[in-house]
């Protein structure tokens, strides 16, 4: 079936669907009166179009379908809200952090106890030093302890057992 042979199969679907212009429709119908092959094709196409119109999808539980759709919609909206809050979250966090930092800076500088805190630390250090004064007063003796030990070893050199013997 080619155009050269004068067949009109390419226009038959449009004819069946009623989408041909008047002139073209008349031309195709004239051809159909003389061409059994194209008439058979038109009959088949008409039957196919009718059968295709009757094809239906498998059954669906529409209430369940709607419930599921509602859930998906709610989930999508929650996700969108979460995305939005994620985008705007850094702003209040940064603002709050800045505010706290500013309060610490301003408030810390004007705190009356700031000097006292340093004084407390110094007092603690003094107390620790005082508790060690007794050791410090015997510093000479402490420094010479190692030396005394060496003297003791030298003194007992004769009585110490040799390395090789033992």
């Amino acid at each position: 079936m080619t155009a050269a042979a004068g067949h009109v199969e390419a226009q038959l679907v449009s004819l069946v669907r009623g989408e041909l212009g008047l002139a073209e429709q008349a031309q195709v119908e004239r051809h159909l009166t003389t061409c059994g092959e194209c008439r058979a094709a038109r009959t088949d196409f008409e039957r196919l179009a009718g059968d295709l119109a009757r094809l239906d999808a498998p059954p669906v539980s529409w209430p369940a379908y709607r419930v599921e759709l509602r859930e998906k919609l709610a989930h999508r909206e929650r996700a969108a809200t979460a995305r939005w809050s994620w985008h705007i979250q850094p702003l209040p966090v940064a603002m709050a952090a800045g505010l706290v930092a500013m309060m610490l800076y301003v408030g810390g500088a004007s705190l009356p106890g700031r000097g006292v805190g340093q004084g407390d630390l110094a007092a603690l250090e003094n107390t620790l030093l005082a508790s060690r004064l007794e050791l410090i007063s015997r510093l000479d003796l402490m420094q010479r302890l190692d030396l005394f030990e060496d003297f003791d070893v030298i003194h007992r050199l004769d009585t110490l057992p040799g390395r090789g013997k033992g």
Partner: protein
Amino acid sequence: MEPTDEDLCRRVAGGEPGAFDCLVERFEKRAFRIAWGILRDHEAAKDCSQEAFLRLHEGAGSFSGQSKFSTWFYRIVANVCLDHRRRARGWRQLLAWRDADPGRNEDGDLIERLPAPAADPGDALDAERRLSHLWCAVETLSPQLRATVLLACREGLATREIAAVLGLSEATVRVHLHRAFATLRRRVGGAS
């Protein structure tokens, strides 16, 4: 007086409660049927048609009203389904679950290579079996040809509307319809 589809869409965009549910009830069957026609998978058709409704909910404000609401919405459904098909096919190829066939394309080269029925089945089959056989033949069409033929015959869309839904020219739609009908005729057999 019943609000039109276009009115309901505007109300959805305006956040009016109930408008979305109303549109869902009007279009759920058609959306599922189109999705099922393209995908031929119950779960995928359900998911894709629901996804189309979600996109409708999100993008109702972008409906300009220049076309019919149904045309605009069918386009969403078809796009979601064809995207789903492309993704699924991409994964299948990636995982080598199916041999990649370079000769296969959207225009249905596979159909051309399928053997014709050994005998004319139309004589022996009753109407129900003939429909079942027709579904099998429709299944061999590429998703785009299937979408074209089902939008034309099942949903009764004009060529101009199908072109708008599938983003094709009217000439291409006519070629698709002719190819689909010729293929189905060959697969299912003639009436005589």
